[in-house]
């Protein structure tokens, strides 16, 4: 059984957004003890959030932070990152539901602002993400 799995280039942007959202959870957890009194006496308050943040940071380093002009397929270690990617992508796919429902309203606003519509792109990316999740679920 393969110990790796592939993130296709076409979903990498959304996987990255999903990971960054989860990173926000870890950052929020880390922020809370920072404002408490006696924080200096309780390094254990920071341990879990720090570990989670570092795990996500390593993952973003591996899939790249989006600085390249062209996305490429990325192969990752399944035991180390499979569940993290699956959970983050699954939550991100739920956000797409709202964005897809509101795609027409978004396009109206974009046209008023003189920007190109993006409904087709939103629908394609949402569908690609769901397809990726379906392929990943049995592996993880």
């Amino acid at each position, binding site marked *: 059984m393969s110990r790796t799995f592939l993130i296709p280039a076409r979903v990498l942007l959304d996987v990255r957004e999903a990971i960054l959202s*989860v990173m926000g*959870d870890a950052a929020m957890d880390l922020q809370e003890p920072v404002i408490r009194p006696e924080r200096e006496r309780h390094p254990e308050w920071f341990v879990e959030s720090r570990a989670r943040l570092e795990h996500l940071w390593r993952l973003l380093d591996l899939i790249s932070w989006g600085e390249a002009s062209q996305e490429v397929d990325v192969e990752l270690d399944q035991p180390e990152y499979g569940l993290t990617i699956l959970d983050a992508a699954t939550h991100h796919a739920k956000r797409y539901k*709202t964005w897809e429902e509101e795609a027409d309203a978004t396009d109206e606003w974009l046209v008023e602002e003189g920007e190109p519509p993006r409904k087709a792109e939103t629908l394609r990316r949402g569908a690609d993400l769901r397809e990726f999740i379906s392929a990943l679920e049995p592996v993880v």
Partner: protein
Amino acid sequence: MSPERERAYAAERLKIARAFGKRLRTLRVNDDHSQDSLARATRLHRTQISLLERGERIPGLLTILILTDALQVSPNNLLRGLPTPKERRSLGAKQGSPHVMSSEKQQLRLLGQTIRSIREKEYFTLPALAAAVNIPTIQLQAVEDGELDPDYELLIRLAECLGTRPSTFITRAEALGKQQNI
């Protein structure tokens, strides 16, 4: 801060985040914005708008000001009706008259205790299980404290991570209630 107060404060933070999210959504829809268009109007990421509306983020001051500017409302309007985190008040100010817990609250508390008990038996820390089911730690803490009613989807995810079934949470909570004569 004692663990009890810490948990109560976490539950309050979640309530505040959810109340803010609900208020933001109402004002956004009233202003004929989609999440995406509001994100573009504010130069915030659309994921951030989604997270705020779902109560999964507590906004900072700058975010609040940016949103009020885009929605053309006052900060007071955006923050209207939000509860104050009383758990951060001094202990003296917090003391009040004891109250009787409602049946629904008792059931939620028993469910939370059951989830915590199974989690600890499976050697999951709170943040680790929260990460595994992809929710903020404060949300799971609120569930375990009986401050938040978990939806069935969350119960399924928790059960999967803890190697059990959602129905087990319910039956064990009922058994715990009988033990405690509730």
